[in-house]
């Protein structure tokens, strides 16, 4: 028997793979100053039981590799700063090409959303 719970989880994970990148890019584009990982995690409410983000199953720890990958693609830039308490923090901000990419990705997202909504609503003919 196929584990239903497991397939739900897999579907969520597949969906979140792209949407998390879009969400993080958007959060950083809206922020007025560079943010570090912990703040970003708080903002999306990742890892909080019952929050929106936990519905798409993002753990706070899973944000960091996404931030790194966005940075490698030169959509984000980062700077390390010492903090008074604890280890140095890595502050991220959106680059110019990140802003352009965000616009393009938002468009793709809207197209996808419209398409899926249309199909789910049964009015695709």
């Amino acid at each position, binding site marked *: 028997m196929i584990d239903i719970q497991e397939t739900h989880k897999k579907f969520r994970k597949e969906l979140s793979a792209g949407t998390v990148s879009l969400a993080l890019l958007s959060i950083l584009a809206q922020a007025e100053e560079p943010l*570090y*990982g*912990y703040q970003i*995690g708080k903002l999306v409410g*990742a*890892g*909080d039981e019952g929050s929106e983000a936990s519905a798409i199953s993002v*753990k*706070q*720890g*899973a944000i*960091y*590799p*996404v931030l*790194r*990958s966005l940075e*490698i*693609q*030169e959509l984000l830039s980062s700077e*390390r700063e010492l*903090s008074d*308490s*604890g*280890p*140095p*923090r*890595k502050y991220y901000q959106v680059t110019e090409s990140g802003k352009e990419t965000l616009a393009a990705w938002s468009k793709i997202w809207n197209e996808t959303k419209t398409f899926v909504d249309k199909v789910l609503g049964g009015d695709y003919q």
Partner: protein
Amino acid sequence: MKTTDEIIQTYLDDLKSALAGADKATVQDALADAEEHLRTALESERTEQEGLEESAALEGIIQSYGDAQEIAQAYQSWESSIPSALAATPAARRTISSANGKSYPGFFGVYADPRAWGGLVYMLISLATGIIYFTWAVTGISVSLGVMVLIIGIPVSILFLLSFRGIAFLEGRLVEALLGERMPRRASFTDSNLGWKERLKQLLTGKSTWLSSIYMILMLPLGIIYFTVMVVLISVSLALIISPVLAYGFNIPVGTFIDGDVVRQLPNYFTPLISILGVGLATGTMHVARWVGKVHGKFAKALLVSD
């Protein structure tokens, strides 16, 4: 009851074992991210709430961060979707995609390979960096040993050892940028909650400090070899390539050779052939640069990135 430091250390150990087999640099990045997050989160809860039950709060923070298995998986899947640091440029993406079909760029394709150009630049600057690293390492070690008997000897040695770590990190960035070998993207920091004795012990007994100094010393002979080989290959190739210009344009004899005790000269119409030979040698040079870059990247990783 475990202290918060112990809990964080246990989590980091779990994460490290969950990442077994992953790229060493990925492991180092993942551990640094996790430690930054856990400590920052704990610190911010501490300021928000007086008399916080720290161990319990930390368990909650780890809960939201995600368990070690899950986080390890996240890093590995993101890491595998990015072939290398060079993949950010379109030219590199093309090379990588063509390299997937064919493991080598082809004889002339090497000119479009950023790794070959990176290797070339690296080899040319390695003489300068090699001299700097060698001088610094040798000065550091000998000054430290020399003043060891004095009270000021200890801080002096510590400063030098710390600088070795910093240089190892910077060299790592250079190696990743030019040679494409994945290196740590952030310096490993020492835990500020540890006592100075513990930190000093880590610095002195840590394998990474000493391996870095060995690397710095070896960079001088390697730099000399890399630089010399590259300069010779490049100048010989260029000389061969421009030989028709020299022969026809400036009437400079090209292709002289000694036959017994007579000096003979190849007719000028041979010079285009010499030029073609030069193009071949130049292309071969690019292949050498690409190969040396690859091998040196592995070597740098072995010595500069600790497990």
